């Protein structure tokens, strides 16, 4: 799927320093092709989350350029709400809306942003709640759900917007171990469906199985971009080999 496709995300020489002086991204360049699954790995604090969040501009950058689906998102004149609606994001801490039922969690942005009718939004919501296996909880409030169930709601909420790209930031890190597999399975089946995905994760099994390419970051820099096979058996950089030996 990844060969010869056109790039849907292009990051060029992205730099980002937080107000506290931490240089989180240094000259990061990466292009992601349509339908590609890119997994970003790296030690804690290496800038994975920061980079992911620059793609939908939850984090602004100091210099460089990021183009998503042909739109320069780093241009101050760009209408961000429009491009953000095409990029789904799944967070480590779910961030479901606690004051709304599961169904309304998935309906809200569809009606507000996509201007769908309530009926249409509800049908689509149910379709995706079914897909993530949680349609039976549609009338529950998030407070009554387990972490794994909340993350399913969050995934359905993002998918219901029919995004062109899905960003996952450690979607399983806050889950109890027995919940992790279910979420990873959903992510794998999405990967197979051909949706473009950028995934930050510490789950090397997932990276190996689902990634088209793996990006290794360290101290705000991309050190190596390689296929899963090469990363795990034949890594070029010393730092990546060190990182893998620490976690595997």
């Amino acid at each position, binding site marked *: 799927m990844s060969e010869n496709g056109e790039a849907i995300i292009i990051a060029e020489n992205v730099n980002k320093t937080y107000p506290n002086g931490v240089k989180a991204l240094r000259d990061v360049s990466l292009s992601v092709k349509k339908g590609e699954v890119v997994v970003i790995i790296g030690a804690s604090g290496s800038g994975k989350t920061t980079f992911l969040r620059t793609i*939908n501009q*939850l984090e602004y950058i100091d210099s460089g350029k990021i183009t998503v689906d042909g739109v320069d998102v780093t241009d101050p004149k760009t209408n961000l*709400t*429009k491009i*953000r*609606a*095409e*990029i*789904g*994001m799944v*967070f480590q*801490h779910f*961030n*479901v*809306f*606690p*004051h709304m039922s599961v169904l309304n969690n998935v309906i*809200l*942005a569809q009606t*507000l*942003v996509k201007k769908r009718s309530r009926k249409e939004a509800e049908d689509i919501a149910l379709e995706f709640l079914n897909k993530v296996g949680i349609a039976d909880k549609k009338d529950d*409030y998030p*407070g*009554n759900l387990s972490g794994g169930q909340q993350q399913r709601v*969050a995934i359905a*909420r*993002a998918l219901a*917007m029919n995004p062109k790209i899905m*960003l996952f930031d450690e979607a399983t890190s806050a889950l109890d171990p027995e919940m992790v597999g279910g979420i990873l399975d959903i992510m794998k089946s999405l990967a197979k469906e051909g949706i473009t995905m950028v995934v930050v994760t510490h789950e090397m099994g997932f990276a190996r199985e689902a990634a088209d390419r793996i990006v290794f970051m360290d101290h705000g820099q991309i050190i190596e971009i390689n296929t899963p096979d090469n990363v795990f058996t034949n890594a070029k950089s010393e730092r990546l080999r060190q990182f893998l030996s620490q976690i595997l």
Partner: protein
Amino acid sequence: MRKADKRNKILWNVAFVIVLIGLGFSVYKASLRINYSWNWRAVPSYIIYNNVTNINSPVNGVVKGYKDGVLIIESLAKKTIKLKVAHTKLKPGSKVTQDEPVGYNSHYQPGPLLIGLIMTLKISFVSIIIALVIGFITGLMRISSNPLLKNLAITYIELIRGTPLLVQIFIVYFFIGTVFNMTRFVAGAFALAVFEGAYIAEIIRAGIQSISKGQTEASLALGMNYFQIMRYIIMPQAIKRVLPALAGQFISLVKDSSLLSIISITELTKAGREVASSTFSPFEVWFTVAALYFIMTYTLSLLDRYIERRLARNE
């Protein structure tokens, strides 16, 4: 709960009632020491009283009939006269002479304290609405990243919180009120709203800031704009969280409205002062005024608890 704990609880509740009775009794005792003679009988009439007006016959004549509260009299000159009389003892055929009482009308009328209470309710209601609007807007300005909006909000909040309400009422009434030709009521409601609005702004700000950033980020990632995020995600959660504080502020507002008596708005406190000075029952009047305030504030308290419980169901 353990059995012994339960018994203890009951004992302490009994003790509470005894303490209350004791306190009441000591107030009574204290009043005896200053030779105060209690007279509660007149108090209800300060709240509501039965207004009786006697009706006199305008002519000499004969009663022809009485139907549906209307007395029909035929004068000696054969003219028919109809009088509205609610209560009469006259029967058809009775003779009446001019200016003789033929009966009376009676109806309930609000006493001065009730009129004052209604004024307090009115001015509090208007002030709460304006204060909420001010509070919301300045609360949002306060957390804005725009220095103009933010500094304006901070200046307003600090000035209002740093000066006494009484002084503010004077300033609004004598200065702003005169410049803009405001009525007492408008000036009073405005002064109160501006004062409470500063506190509500801080409550709203705290509420918004207490909602985790993840909520805003998830909404932004879905493509929602600032207004939509505030309206559908942040405010509903923030308001739920600060509802007790808001209710407390409303209660303060109702009580603070008593200061408006100083600019001659006849609300409950001014009414109380007028009644107290024209009767010889200051204690009864002031206790009654206090009770009326308490009924209003306690109702707000109960309302708050009710809404909190309703909202808690949706979690």
